[in-house]
């Protein structure tokens, strides 16, 4: 694909714009699918079937009461705080690698969901949120009529 075409009068901004659109087309979708926008806790995996979207996050060792989830038809916000377990004062650390603190993440949904029917569960350190798709977002079976 020729990204830049020679014309009599080149509008550099328009060319730049079309280049950006082309790059976005190639990488935008890829970035969304592979989660290249990393860096915000918690890491999320999203999957779907015909009726629901499933969002999973690894948040080990948190009290489920310390997780706060709010949703709109096209986004979900997960916030909370992971607190360290109280250890005695007479303790000396050899290694300290586990992270604690608050988190606050919003993520756009790939399709409309029904926020009233969202449910969430927490098991073995994994938060699972089930988001039923809005009726208009569900795939429809199209019947092919024969003449």
């Amino acid at each position, binding site marked *: 694909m020729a990204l830049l075409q020679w014309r009599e009068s080149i509008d550099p901004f328009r060319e730049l714009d079309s280049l950006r659109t082309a790059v976005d087309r190639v990488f935008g979708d890829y970035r969304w699918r592979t989660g290249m926008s990393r860096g915000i806790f918690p890491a999320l995996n999203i999957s779907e079937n015909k009726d629901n979207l499933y969002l999973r996050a690894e948040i080990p*060792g*948190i009290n489920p009461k310390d997780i706060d989830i709010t949703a709109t038809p096209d986004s979900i916000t997960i916030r909370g705080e992971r607190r360290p377990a109280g250890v005695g004062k007479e303790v000396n650390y050899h290694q300290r690698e586990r992270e604690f603190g608050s988190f606050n993440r919003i993520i756009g949904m790939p399709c409309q969901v029904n926020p009233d029917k969202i449910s969430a569960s927490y098991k073995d350190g994994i938060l699972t949120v089930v988001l039923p798709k809005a009726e208009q977002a569900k795939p429809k079976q199209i019947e092919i009529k024969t003449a």
Partner: protein
Amino acid sequence: MSAEEIKKTEKQVEATRGETTRGMPSFIPPVDVYEDKSSITVVADMPGVNKNGVSIDIKDDQLKILGKVEAPAPHETALRREYETGNYYRQFTIAAELIDLDKITAKMADGVLTLTLPKAEKALPRRIEVTSE
């Protein structure tokens, strides 16, 4: 929220034991290790592992922790993957003679393993009786 924001850390792939036949990566769980007067405690984050999936092995001064996760949910199409799922493995060298091996306790809750290694009672100074003929 007043608390400091939690840092997002990538899962570290554990590669010393070679590939798995299941084609699943194996990860190094982040740990806290602390010590008080009576015991050493190892706390490891292993999300997705339940208590049946943990095995702990002490042999030749090597403490090995293995956490097995259950297979991911089927019948779903992945749309976004920011973390991978796999087993956990980590190995520590410990002075086994300083630990009371019979009293080790392990607890698995909410994807966090807490392993308590009580210290062995210090060998009491032995009193040597001197007998006279």
